[in-house]
């Protein structure tokens, strides 16, 4: 059972890392700031979600698990809010496209 959980953790974390890498590739390849924001908010959020999902079974207590979920929720909240603010600022300065 432990081996199955460990395999799940490794697979989920590797998948999460792959999405982080894809987000970073998007950051480098996408042509303007607004499209780069898509890469950072969407791919990285999924990457973090998968890493948290992979770490949850390894948490030593319920509290540890809740902390991981809280980290994920706070990052989602911050990312959704800040992405909009940056996008708005870029549009006002006419640098979005």
């Amino acid at each position, binding site marked *: 059972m432990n081996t199955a959980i460990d395999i799940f953790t490794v697979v989920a974390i590797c998948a999460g890392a792959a999405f982080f890498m894809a987000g970073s590739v998007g950051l480098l390849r996408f*042509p303007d700031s607004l499209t780069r*924001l*898509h890469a950072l908010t*969407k791919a990285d*959020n999924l990457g973090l*979600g998968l890493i948290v999902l992979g770490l949850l079974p390894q948490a030593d207590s319920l509290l540890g698990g*809740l*902390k991981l979920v809280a980290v994920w929720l706070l990052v989602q909240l911050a990312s959704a809010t800040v992405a909009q603010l940056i996008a*708005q600022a870029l549009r006002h300065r006419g640098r979005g496209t």
Partner: protein
Amino acid sequence: MSTSSDSRAGPPVRVAVGRAALFLAFWLMSAGYQPADLPVGLLAAAAATWASLRLLPPTATRLRLSSLIMFSLHFFRQSVISGIEVARIACDPRLPLRAGFVVYRCRLRSAGERGVFCALSSLLPGTLPTGTNEDGDLLIHCLDVTRPVVASLTEEETLFTRVLRHD
């Protein structure tokens, strides 16, 4: 089935106490319980409550629990699709982007509800709200303008509206 979002929750003091308890519980969860640290936690919870009451005053809006669960499931599914889609475009050698803006007439009138809807839609596939135009319509930046962005946003908004109930 519905739950109160501290809404109509009666007197403001009750709302404040409810929020303070929630913030303190969150602080205890993240920092752990040490009696010596408790004053810092109480101070942090009080500051967070003050900020939340100032920025998000209690309203007469309730959340429908069943609709909230439905929306959350839909949102998680869409977030996964969104991440996969961006990753696919980023790693495609041809970089198939058809980026541009789409104007979306949002039916939500309350600034708070609009803000939440915009935050949620910024995590959905291919859309990023960038504020409003002079007519008050949302300007959405899309990775692919040929996709039915307005239709999917309308669907998201309908689902989101079902979660809220105004008394």
